C-alpha cells in the first residue's frame, strides 16, 4: 500500500474542516457526467436526514482526464463541506484487462480513510460512482446503522431479479457465507459504510502488493471486517442503477477478477475460516421495496453450448484440477438436453472448492485456471436459468439458500483437501 505517496498528495489538497460526524467518500474515474448530480443528491439527503450531524463529501479522483472534479465542484453550493483528494493510479492498474470498477480502488479507499481519520469522522461511507448511481436516499440508509452506533460495517443489498448477479448468487455469496459464517449477500457490492473503529482497524492491517482491481479492495475490506469480529448489517437500497460506462468485460475476465480476489483472501485467512461452522444471518436495514417486474426469459442454450465445448476441449486441464468422480458427473451432464440439464448444488460447490485448491497450489497459471472455470460456470448458469424460469422471487431465494446449504455441507471436503492436498490429489 503506497501510504507515503497517498498521504503526501492528500496534504496538498485537503482543506482542514475540523471534526465531522459523517464522511462520504466518492471514487471517480472517467465519470464526469454522473458525479456532479450524485454528489449533490447525497449532500441533500444527508442534510435532511441528519440535520444535527456535520457531514462532508470527499471526492477521490484517480486523475482521469474527464474533468470530473470540476463537475463535482461546480455542483456544490457550500464548498466548506466538500473535500477533494487525489490518489495514485499505477499504469498497471489502468491497463488491467477486463477491469471492473475504478482502477486503483485500494489507493482511493486508503486516501478516503486517511482523510476521514484526519477529520475524526464517526462514520465513513464509500461509494464507487463508476459502478452504480445510488438512489436519492440510499446513502442515508447505508450510513444510518453506523451513525447510531449499532453496526460497524454495512454492505449494500440491492434488489436484483432472479437472473441477475449470477456470479454473486452462485459463487461469491455462498462461498463467503460458508467460509466466514456470516450471510452477507453482496460482500463485494462496491458501496459500504464503516464505523471509525473499523476504519482505524483497516488502516493498521498489512496488505500485500499486487492488488490491482476494485474487487480486490472490496474483498479485502469485507474479509478483514469478517475476521476482525465486527458487527455486520445489510442496507436495503432498492434496485441497482448502473452508471454509464464502457460495456461490461467478458465473462471470463469478470470471473477471474472477482473469484481471484476471493481466492486470494481465502488463502490469506485460511487459519480463520477453517474454524468456522455454519453461518449466521445479519440484520437488514432500510425500507422494503416492491418486487421487480418479471424479467424477460433467458435462453440457456448458448451457455450450455459453452459448457459442452469447454468440457470437450479442456478435459486435459480439468483432469489436473477435478477428481475422477466429478469429471464423470460432468461427462454425464453433457449428454443431457437443455430440457433436463441440471447442475447439482453439491457438485457445483465441490467444483468451486476444487478450483480454490488449484488456485492455492498453483496447479497452473492462475489466469488459465479462471479461464477454464468459465465454461463450468456457464453450465451452472444454464442450469440455474432453467430451474428458476417459473419461479417467483421467493422461490428463487429459497434455491439460493439451498445452494448455500450445499456449500456449507461440503466445507468439510474443502478443509480436508486444504490440509492434505497430496493425499486427495486427483
Amino acid at each position: 500500500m503506497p501510504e507515503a505517496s497517498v498521504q503526501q498528495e492528500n496534504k496538498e489538497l485537503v482543506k482542514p474542516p475540523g471534526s465531522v460526524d459523517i464522511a462520504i467518500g466518492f471514487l471517480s474515474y472517467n465519470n464526469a457526467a454522473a458525479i456532479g448530480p450524485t454528489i449533490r443528491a447525497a449532500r441533500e439527503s444527508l442534510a435532511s436526514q441528519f440535520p444535527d450531524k456535520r457531514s462532508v463529501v470527499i471526492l477521490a479522483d484517480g486523475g482521469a482526464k474527464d474533468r470530473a472534479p470540476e463537475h463535482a465542484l461546480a455542483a456544490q453550493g457550500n464548498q466548506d463541506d466538500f473535500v477533494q483528494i487525489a490518489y495514485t493510479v499505477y499504469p498497471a492498474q489502468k491497463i488491467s484487462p477486463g477491469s471492473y470498477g475504478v482502477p486503483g480502488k485500494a489507493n482511493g479507499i486508503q486516501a478516503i480513510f486517511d482523510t476521514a481519520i484526519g477529520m475524526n469522522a464517526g462514520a465513513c461511507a464509500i461509494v464507487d460512482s463508476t459502478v452504480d448511481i445510488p438512489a436519492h436516499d440510499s446513502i442515508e440508509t447505508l450510513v444510518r446503522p453506523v451513525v447510531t452506533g449499532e453496526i460497524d460495517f454495512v454492505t449494500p443489498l440491492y434488489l436484483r431479479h432472479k437472473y441477475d448477479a449470477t456470479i454473486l448468487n452462485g459463487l461469491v455469496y455462498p462461498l463467503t457465507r460458508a467460509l466466514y459464517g456470516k450471510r452477507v449477500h453482496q460482500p463485494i457490492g462496491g458501496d459500504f459504510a464503516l464505523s471509525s473503529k473499523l476504519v482505524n482497524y483497516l488502516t493498521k492491517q498489512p496488505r500485500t502488493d499486487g492488488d490491482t482491481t476494485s474487487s480486490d479492495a472490496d474483498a479485502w475490506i469485507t474479509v478483514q471486517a469478517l475476521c476482525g469480529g465486527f458487527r455486520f448489517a445489510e442496507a436495503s437500497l432498492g434496485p441497482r442503477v448502473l452508471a454509464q460506462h464502457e460495456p461490461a468485460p467478458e465473462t471470463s475476465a469478470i470471473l477471474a477478477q472477482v473469484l481471484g480476489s476471493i481466492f486470494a483472501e481465502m488463502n490469506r485467512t485460511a487459519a480463520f475460516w477453517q474454524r468456522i461452522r455454519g453461518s449466521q444471518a445479519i440484520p437488514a436495514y432500510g425500507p422494503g421495496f416492491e418486487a421487480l417486474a418479471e424479467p424477460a426469459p433467458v435462453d440457456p442454450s448458448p451457455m450450455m453450448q459453452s459448457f459442452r465445448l469447454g468440457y470437450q476441449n479442456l478435459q486435459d486441464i480439468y483432469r489436473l484440477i477435478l477428481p475422477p468422480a466429478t469429471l464423470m458427473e460432468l461427462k454425464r451432464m453433457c449428454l443431457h438436453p437443455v430440457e433436463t440439464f441440471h447442475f447439482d448444488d453439491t457438485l457445483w460447490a465441490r467444483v468451486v472448492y476444487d478450483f480454490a485448491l488449484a488456485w492455492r497450489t498453483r496447479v497452473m497459471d492462475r489466469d488459465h485456471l479462471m479461464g477454464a472455470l468459465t465454461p463450468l460456470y456457464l453450465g451452472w448458469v444454464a442450469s440455474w436459468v432453467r430451474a428458476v424460469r417459473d419461479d417467483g422471487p421467493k422461490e428463487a431465494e429459497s434455491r439460493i439458500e439451498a445452494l448455500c446449504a450445499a456449500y456449507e455441507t461440503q466445507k468439510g471436503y474443502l478443509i480436508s483437501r486444504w490440509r492434505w492436498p497430496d493425499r486427495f490429489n486427483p
Partner: protein
Amino acid sequence: MMRDQVNEVLRQTMARIATATEDFLPGLLAFLMILVLTIIVAFILRAFIRRSLQRIEFDHHIERWGFSALNDWSPARSPTRLMAQTSFLGILLIGVLIGVSALDSRLTSQLIVELFDYLPHVVAAVVILIVGSVVSRFLARSVLIGAVNMQIQSARLLSIGVKWLVIVLTVAMALNHLRIGGTVVLISFAIMFGGIVLALALAVGLGSKDMIRQSWARQSDRMEREAEEQFHHL
C-alpha cells in the same frame, strides 16, 4: 653375413616393439583401472540419483508439470530412470576421457579442449529447448482456453498449431546453436515455418471463415441478448 644382418634387424625390431610395449602398457593399465573405477562410481551415482528422485516422486511431478511426453522417451516410461541413466553415461564418458589422457595426453588434451569449447553451445541449446517447451505449452493452453471461451469450435486445432509453431522455432534455434546442419537447417526451418503459417492462414481465412464469422456473430448476439435480457453476471 646375410643371416647376421637379418638377425640384427630382427633383434632391433623386437627391441623396438618391446620398448613400445613397455611404454604403452602402463598407460593401458592406467586406462583400464580408471575405467573400472569410473564404472563403479557411475553405478553408485546412478543408484543414488534413482533413489533420490523416487523419494521426491519425480515422475509424478514431471507428469503434473505437463512434461508427460518425456515418459514416451524414457526407458520404462520413467523419467527417473532416464535421469539416472543419463548421469551414468555422463560419468562413463568423463572416465573414458580421463582414461584416454593416460594413453596419449596430447590427443586427449586436444579432444578435451574441443569438447569444452562445444559444451556451452550444448548447454545453451538445452536451455533453449526447455524454455521453448515451456513457452509452447503456455501459449497453447492460453490459445485453447481463450478460443473455447470465445466458442470457437476449432479451438484445439488453433492450440496445436501455435504449439508446433513455437516448437519448430525452438528446435531450429537449438540446432543453430549446436552448429548442426548450417544453412540447410535454416532454409528448412524457413520453409516449414512459412508453410505452417500459410496453412493456418488458409485454414482460418478460407476454410474456417464461416466458423469464425459465426463465432463472432454468436459473441455479438450474446452481448446484445444479455443487454436485452437484463442479464448481468455481476
